[in-house]
């Protein structure tokens, strides 16, 4: 083997997979086409426009920088790759009171607005791809229970209503202190997301902890990651062309009646 043949062989053996696995997909996926609804299958027309809100860009970056990906995934895989869609609350809910069966696999539009897809390293903690949906669901559940206890309508709960955002802040501040049934959580405390401020008047509404005339309120970094987490809602309707197992999901289960018993909540919401 001469040096010349060595380098030709080395260049070819590296460049071909580099092009096929990295460079070409990187370029081609950087501008993905819009997905159109099919009138026959979707019973509507137009372009599918997934809704994203919240501070996704900066929130996603903080999420990655803090290493949340080490324990939390954000991927609902197709059935050939795992049982994710069968875990209630991960890819959506089997029987959402409002929307029926919202379960689906993760698609390439779910990470719009983020610099990178935080699909995660391990599942030492729960999958967070639909964390926002689970908090919304928990909010509805908690308010329903509270309203029943107080004998009032949910709309009359006022300040007593469950605050999903505060729930997230408390989890970030100290998951083993505030969150009921989370004593076994091995999620770390994140004091750097909060700042200690002297209490003036009634104090801040989003303070997570008060002690000796001071309270801990979320800083910009804490607000950004909470906004990101609360907006992780990757469930619901997508065009049929994006559904992996069309045979099963073409006919979604009808939405249950309003008076039906509420579904079981998400795992960390318990």
């Amino acid at each position, binding site marked *: 083997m001469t040096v010349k043949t060595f380098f030709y062989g080395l260049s070819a053996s590296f460049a071909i997979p580099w092009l096929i696995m990295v460079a070409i997909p990187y370029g081609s996926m950087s501008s993905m086409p819009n997905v159109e609804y099919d009138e026959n299958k979707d019973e509507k027309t137009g372009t599918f426009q997934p809704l994203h809100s919240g501070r996704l860009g900066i929130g996603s970056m903080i999420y990655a920088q803090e*290493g949340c*990906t080490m324990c939390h995934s954000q991927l609902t895989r197709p059935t050939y790759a*795992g049982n994710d869609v069968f875990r209630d609350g991960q890819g959506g809910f089997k029987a959402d009171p409002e929307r029926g069966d919202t379960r689906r696999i993760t698609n390439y539009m779910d990470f719009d607005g983020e610099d990178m*897809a935080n699909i995660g390293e391990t599942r030492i903690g729960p999958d967070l791809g639909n964390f926002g949906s689970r908090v919304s669901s928990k909010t509805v559940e908690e308010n329903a229970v509270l309203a029943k206890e107080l004998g009032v309508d949910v709309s009359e709960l006022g300040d007593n209503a469950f605050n999903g955002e505060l729930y997230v802040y408390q989890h970030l501040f100290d998951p083993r202190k505030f969150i009921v049934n989370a004593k*076994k959580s*091995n999620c*770390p*405390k994140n004091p750097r997301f909060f700042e200690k401020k002297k209490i003036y008047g009634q104090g801040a509404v989003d303070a997570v902890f008060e002690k000796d005339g001071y309270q801990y309120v979320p800083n910009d970094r804490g607000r950004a990651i909470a906004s990101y987490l609360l907006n992780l809602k990757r469930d619901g309707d997508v065009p049929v062309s994006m559904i992996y197992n069309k045979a099963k999901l073409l006919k979604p289960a009808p939405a249950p009646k309003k008076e039906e018993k509420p579904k079981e909540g998400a795992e960390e919401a318990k």
Partner: protein
Amino acid sequence: MSTEVNSPFLEDTKLRADVDRSLRHPVMFFFTSGAAWLAVSLVLGIITSIKTHAPGFLDCTSFFNTGLTMQAHMSTLIYGWGAQAAFGVIIWLMARLSRQESKRSGIILVAGHIWNAAMTYGVIKILMGEGSGIAWLYFPTEVTAVLIGLYFFIGTWSVIAFRVRRGGHIYISQWYILASLFWFPWVLLTGFLFCQIYLGEGHPMMITATSAWFRSALLLLFFTPVAIASAYYIAPKVTGRPVYSYNLAIFGFWALAIVGPWVGMQRLMGAPIPSFMPYLSAGAAILLLIPAIAVAINILRTAKGSSSAMAHSPSLRFTVAGAVGLLLMAGIGALISLPSVMKYTQFSTVQYGYELTAILGFFSMCMYGAIYFIVPRVTNREWISVGLIRQHFWLSIYGVLAIALIYTITGGFMHGDIIERPGEVAATAYSRLYPYAISLTTGFIFLLISTFFFCVHLLLMWLRLGRRSSHPTLLVRHPHGSPHGPEGDLDKLAELDSNLSAN
């Protein structure tokens, strides 16, 4: 007459001594600072591991949060220990095999210092939550840029040494080193450009996919070839026998070169990327068994029959352990990449365990073998304590076995099984993981103890406090005196040199 016969041999001996002397400080710097970073990495690994089974540990500050210490732990393991140990072996091995003294040792040494300074800054930034968050590229962008730049100041001289090499034959170790010198910048630049510089330009999913490819490529196309180059040098040198099969060595090389760059994307099985990518990678990960078996057979067959060398030589012992580690790495890699198994392993701790097995069980073992061979030559002193070498070997073996067999294989699959059950909640998976997390902590503690004394041993050797003897430090005392004859003194070599000059 005698002088005529021995002159070429003596000239070569003098040349090798000159090569060793020229590289003493850069090589010792890379080895010693690498070992120090390995100790730091293991401390961070222990903190991370303890927090898995005792979450309240060190939680008074965010500085040691699991996600942060994990990133710092892997960064120090890869760029602190791995890269620096590899640099030390590359520059020495290439200079020795090319019979070229280093004329740019000062530049390499300065680059090494800046490398360590940049790493220190990067680790602090990671722990402050200001890293990049991208797998195996956790340092901020500016640190990665500096490391890439420094690589050219460190690696270029080895390419030049090869270009102006003496002698016609090119050894298999040289092919591997050349390939690693070629792959490393390409892989690192790909990760740097696609995942850090153009972050936000590409599709978020492809950023993640590229980083998955990057970490695999760094492992298989940099750490692996350097470790194999070292093994192909040490095994024949210590046993005094040629490599078992040169054709098998060439075959193993090309099998790695052809299969290695396809691996990595299997970690994105089921993710919204073109579906051929994870499947191709999974197939390639299984095919990696071919080069691994070829290399391991070659190394083990070369060492076979030299039981006395195995018993005596720490270099050979570590190298053979590294060859077994290569088989273990490829075996675990193939097993967890089977599409039917991926659903259990994709998000279980087995992936982290696989990387630890690869770096600590295969790469590090080969590097230890090389270091125990190289250091006495560049310092012109023999290792001080056979006891320290022996404890280093056995504690490393115990540590790697605890990590590879208990944490990775058993724990990884137990964890994978529970997270794949839809009805189970995260707390159950955490409970299932608990005993295996303790085994990881135990493995790390074994490794930390051995690394601490290894680091001290290296430092003393760099200070030239080693034994002034012509006898190597062997693990087993020979019952009938030393196999190298009566005890000699290194000063005789100096006399030999002066005689040669006079002649």
